[in-house]
């Protein structure tokens, strides 16, 4: 998708001649004026629903969040807003739980995105071979995409259970000890990453596969003529051709990992989810926002968290941009 939008003028209407005169209508009559109005206004009318919906339920609330963040608003009285200035930002920035959530979000983001994309790249490469039943394999690895966060998180909660979890049973079976997955700092983050990896690897695999199939065969032929081995072809032809796609999946996965909510909320089942474990060991920013706004009922600080997330997003976007530029430069 991000590999998108070079406007292809070949497919685009030729420069507008004067609108073909409607039959049986003299120039200047109301019908031809109506006709020209239809031609001018229609494109805007067709794209208007998107911008109206986005403006009303996306952009306006996004800006308004900043205003709410400067107020005291309680869940118990939504129409009473009281100006407090920077107090909400002060509160969350001095809350160690907030910084735990930032760190958790970041760590879980890295340990779920990196293996996921690497595995997707490898699987896409395999699926790009001439295969029997290739459609079957593609559909099979995409199956997790059809499951909801809620069902996925709940079944993995069962798999990762300390007592009676099937994973611990398996580990015990091969002589590895007993792990309290949800309680550990790292083990809980690994468990959440596993859920994310499980749900999204297949999706990313298909994105990569599509990009691989678009690589022109002549490139491989030329490389083969120069005596490149298969591995060299993968590294020197496939990977560079996929660079925009890889960058795109990194951006999408990063944004996705900023939003992790259902996986941590439901990891343990029961009521622990809203605080992300007994030591907030797997509390992400979204869970922190939910906990402040919807469990504790303080919407002001929750709005401040949203703006902190925006700031983080911009920082990440900046880093992506720099990395992208660096990669392009080193390739040149």
């Amino acid at each position, binding site marked *: 998708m991000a*590999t998108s939008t070079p406007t292809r003028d070949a497919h685009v209407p030729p420069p507008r001649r004067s609108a073909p005169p409607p039959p049986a209508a003299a120039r200047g009559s109301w019908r031809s004026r109506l006709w020209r109005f239809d031609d001018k206004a229609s*494109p805007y009318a067709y*794209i208007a629903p998107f911008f109206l919906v986005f403006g009303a339920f996306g952009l306006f609330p996004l800006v308004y969040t900043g205003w*709410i963040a400067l107020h005291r608003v309680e869940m118990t009285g939504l129409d009473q807003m009281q100006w407090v200035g920077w107090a909400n930002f002060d509160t969350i920035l001095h809350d160690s739980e907030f910084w735990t959530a930032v760190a958790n979000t970041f760590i879980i983001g890295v340990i779920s995105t990196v293996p996921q994309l690497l595995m997707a790249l490898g699987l896409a490469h395999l*699926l790009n*071979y001439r295969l029997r039943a290739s459609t079957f394999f593609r559909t099979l690895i995409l199956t997790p995409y059809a499951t909801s966060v809620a069902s996925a998180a709940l079944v993995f909660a069962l798999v990762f259970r300390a007592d009676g979890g099937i994973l611990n049973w398996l580990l015990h079976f091969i002589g590895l000890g007993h792990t309290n997955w949800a309680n550990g700092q790292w083990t809980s983050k690994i468990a959440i990453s596993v859920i994310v990896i499980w749900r999204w690897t297949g999706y990313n695999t298909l994105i990569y596969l599509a990009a691989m199939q678009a690589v022109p065969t002549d490139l491989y032929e030329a490389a083969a003529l120069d005596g490149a*081995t298969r591995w060299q072809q993968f590294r020197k032809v496939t990977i560079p051709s996929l660079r925009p796609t890889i960058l795109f999946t990194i951006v999408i996965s990063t944004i996705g990992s900023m939003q992790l*909510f259902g996986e941590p909320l439901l990891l343990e089942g029961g009521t622990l989810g809203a605080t992300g474990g007994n030591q907030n060991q797997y509390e992400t920013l979204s869970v922190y926002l939910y906990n402040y706004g919807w469990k504790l009922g303080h919407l002001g600080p929750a*709005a401040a968290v949203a703006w902190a997330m925006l700031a983080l997003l911009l920082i990440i976007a900046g880093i992506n941009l720099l990395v992208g530029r660096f990669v392009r430069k080193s390739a040149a």
Partner: protein
Amino acid sequence: MTTTSPAARTTRGRLRVGAGRQLHAGPITYVVLIVAGLLSILPLYWTLVAASHTQNDVLSLTPPLVPGGRLFHNLATAWQQANLGKAIVNSVVVSGCITAATLFFCTLAGYSFAKMRFRGRGWLMTAVIATLTIPPQLSVVPLFMMMSDIGWGGHLESVIFPTLVSAFGVFFMRQYLLEALPYELVEAAKVDGANNFRIVLSIVLPVARPAMMVLGMLTFVQAWNDFFWPYLALSQQNPTLQVALGQLSASYTPDQSIVMAGALISALPLLVVFVVFGKQIVGGIMSGAVKG
């Protein structure tokens, strides 16, 4: 089958190259893919196993590995405990409305961006794509207050309206129509005196049908599975299926077998869709990825 040949080799005077596509997969490839495929469905299998035993059996020292006989009992219990009947109706209404609206509006917008000329088209399209990068988290607090203000608090409208059109859908339809809709067809209709909306109805919609099928399935999957905003916006009395599932597990001592029965109920409709239309969905994701 197992050509582990060097990259370049001449066969019958023609050059065979090492592009993955040309080479047959070796046995290792199949083993890896089979393992990946099994890992993809094992958790779903475990959902079924857990949903068809008692909690005690599932959590016992030697857990059962095949489905048991309590499936229908557990499904019925989950149905009552979590108000699943109402939740299913809500999920169908929400996903149905969102899918229908998305299809209509995204096709219109996609057509406009692909085949019509107007001032600002380029940067408006860029704006559409840019909105893809804004997480919903950033606007939920005011959204919640707005919804309560206009009287939609806790109602399905609060979930339906914010997702009536999707940026991805607009982009997807535009990419499809760029290639699939010959401009001559539109021109011809104009000469025949059709107005723009008439052209949409009698030319664009029929041409767009295959892409609309795929977009419809992708949208339905997403709407059906959506969790974050519905969980915040809807009440315990009026949940979608996913919200009900979340609430079921957030009760004080959830029975894991009942929770798994609920998870099965929520996953089953989509799995059926997936088995039937898997090929099209795969194709849709792949075509959405590179065209353009």
